[in-house]
């Protein structure tokens, strides 16, 4: 089993490269190139490195990733998130914890047009955190609602992590998207349940806003701010499930529609904002695509040296009970989620985990959802949680520890939903099997 030792050495080298501060994409490439050279007996073995890197990113299906990033940047520049949040806050008036419930709802709706959690948290968070604090919500409650709500962005379709997972697992992205809907709604409802509960049990700190009155007319007027988002949701998800477009094509239609909405209807697209959109799109896309390229190269090194097939075979032969395997895999993912950025985790672990999943007789679509729920947790667990940093960027006076205190209950809720979907796979697989 020399392969297992080689594999261990490769992961050790990867860890070392990451810890001395080499960016994830280049750490993966460094270890990949190093391993191929050493194990292949010289630089001649590097013949497939360039073709592997090139073909890993020049995939038509993958174009959905930069397109969703672009769309996120356009939406963020359009101010659509603040309008949506304002409308929902008006509608939720009178509900205990109304502003945090509105945050979850706004995130849920925004998640149906946005492919990333950071974009979702960014679009809703900036405005909603300030509102909640203005009306006397505790910092923990306000920050927790935004950081956790944002994570819905990757579970509710569209979802960049699910696209990347689908490409690695060679599963239908359309099916993965639809599989996320029920778990996503369960997740959102659990958040809301918790928020109502916490508001009731903390009535002494009841938000001042409840003393104001909101008329039915105001509530009806608020609805009109939801219309543009509803149109966008139809353009992105409706076209996929009515057989007009593939998920990739739907992303392009979404870009066009959000451009029209923010340019022609909101009139928010100034020249400066356009430049900003281009910059954000380039930064986000390159970051993701380089990680994918790096991971594919690392995966190629693991395969050509027989490390990956050996690991998968050894694990499959261990003959552990399904529940133990499920728990082990999830603990591993949660552990990695504490320290690493989510997409890196998916691209590094999926190529090894998927053959194991298939060998266990599990549904790869279901496992995609399991993976993404884990990634939602990763986004808000310390020390490295992207959504924690997004929220801190908005409220710089709140220490990170208080933000973390606010998000921890959500980690527990997510773990509960994870377990639920783990025990009842139908929650994920029912819709993909029964659409039309």
């Amino acid at each position, binding site marked *: 089993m020399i392969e297992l030792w080689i594999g261990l050495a490769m992961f050790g080298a990867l860890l070392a*490269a*990451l*810890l*001395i*501060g*080499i*960016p*994830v*994409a*280049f*750490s993966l*490439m*460094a270890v990949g*190139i190093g391993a191929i050279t050493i194990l292949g007996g010289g630089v001649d073995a*590097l013949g497939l*490195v*360039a*073709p592997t*890197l*090139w073909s890993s*990113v*020049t*995939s*038509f299906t*993958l*174009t959905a990733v*930069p*397109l969703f*990033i*672009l769309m996120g940047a356009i939406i963020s520049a359009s101010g659509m998130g603040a309008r949506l949040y304002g409308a929902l806050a008006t509608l939720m008036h009178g509900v205990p914890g109304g502003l945090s419930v509105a945050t979850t709802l706004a995130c849920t709706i925004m998640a149906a047009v946005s492919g990333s959690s950071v974009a979702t948290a960014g679009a809703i968070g900036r405005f909603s955190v300030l509102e909640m604090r203005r009306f006397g919500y505790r910092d923990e409650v306000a920050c927790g609602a935004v950081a956790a709500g944002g994570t819905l962005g990757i579970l509710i379709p569209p979802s960049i992590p699910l696209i990347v997972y689908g490409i690695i697992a060679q599963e239908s992205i359309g099916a993965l998207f639809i599989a996320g809907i029920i778990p996503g709604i369960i997740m959102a409802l659990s958040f809301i349940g918790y928020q109502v509960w916490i508001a009731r049990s903390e009535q002494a700190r009841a938000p001042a806003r409840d003393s104001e009155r909101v008329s039915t007319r105001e509530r009806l007027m608020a609805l009109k701010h939801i219309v543009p988002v509803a149109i966008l949701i139809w353009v992105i998800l409706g*076209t996929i499930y009515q057989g*007009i*477009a593939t998920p*990739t*094509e739907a*992303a*392009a*239609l979404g*870009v*066009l529609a959000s451009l029209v909405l923010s340019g022609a209807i909101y009139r928010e697209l100034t020249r400066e904002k356009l*430049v900003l959109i*281009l*910059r954000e*799109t*380039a*930064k986000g*896309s*390159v*970051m993701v*695509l*380089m*990680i994918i*390229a790096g991971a594919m190269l690392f995966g190629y090194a693991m395969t050509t040296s027989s490390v990956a097939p050996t690991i998968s075979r050894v694990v499959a032969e261990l003959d552990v009970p399904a529940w133990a395997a499920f728990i082990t895999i999830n603990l591993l993912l949660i552990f990695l989620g504490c*320290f690493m*950025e989510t997409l*890196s985790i998916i691209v590094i672990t999926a190529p090894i985990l998927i053959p194991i999943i298939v060998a266990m007789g599990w549904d790869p679509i279901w496992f995609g959802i399991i993976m993404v729920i884990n990634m939602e947790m990763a986004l808000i667990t310390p*020390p*490295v949680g*992207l959504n924690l*940093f997004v929220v801190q960027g908005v409220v710089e006076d709140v220490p990170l520890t208080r933000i973390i205190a606010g998000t921890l209950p959500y980690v527990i809720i997510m773990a509960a939903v994870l377990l639920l979907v783990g025990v009842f796979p139908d929650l994920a697989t029912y819709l993909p099997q029964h659409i039309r």
Partner: protein
Amino acid sequence: MTQAASRPTKRRRPLDALITLSGLSAGLATFLIGLFVAYDVVARTVFLMTNSWVTEITTYLMGYITFVGAAFALREGSHVSVDLLVCRAPPRARRVMMWLADAIMVLVVATLAWLSFGFFMEAWDSQEMSDTLLSVRLWKPYLVFFIGMAWLLLVLILQIGERRLTNKQGSHD
């Protein structure tokens, strides 16, 4: 979470503008993908038209975004890294780590530039074409790969050099 972006100094202004331009062009490439693909869907749905070029051209644009945009992302510090340890290490250990990280980065990117050049040369020599109705000579898109990696190498070396210079000046003050 991310590497700190180094501030440009005066004498680097023109080069800096070029880096920004290469980044904006990668953003623009994404826009083009969106327009092409959306046009393809509309053409197919409304006019029953097929555009054989859309799928292929957009994948080349993906190559452009990734490899030509890499230098811009480096300057902006948007290649994610795990800086847990680096941030907490004592100054001396930190210097060693950064030195090591820089050396490995240069080595990797130089290797990528060399390999992508070989990739391009092979397609140039064989005049291999894409296996599609468009039949593009593959050296053309592959050249973009090489240019991107060479550009990344240049920007990386300048960035490291500049940071060392600033650090040295800092320690003299």
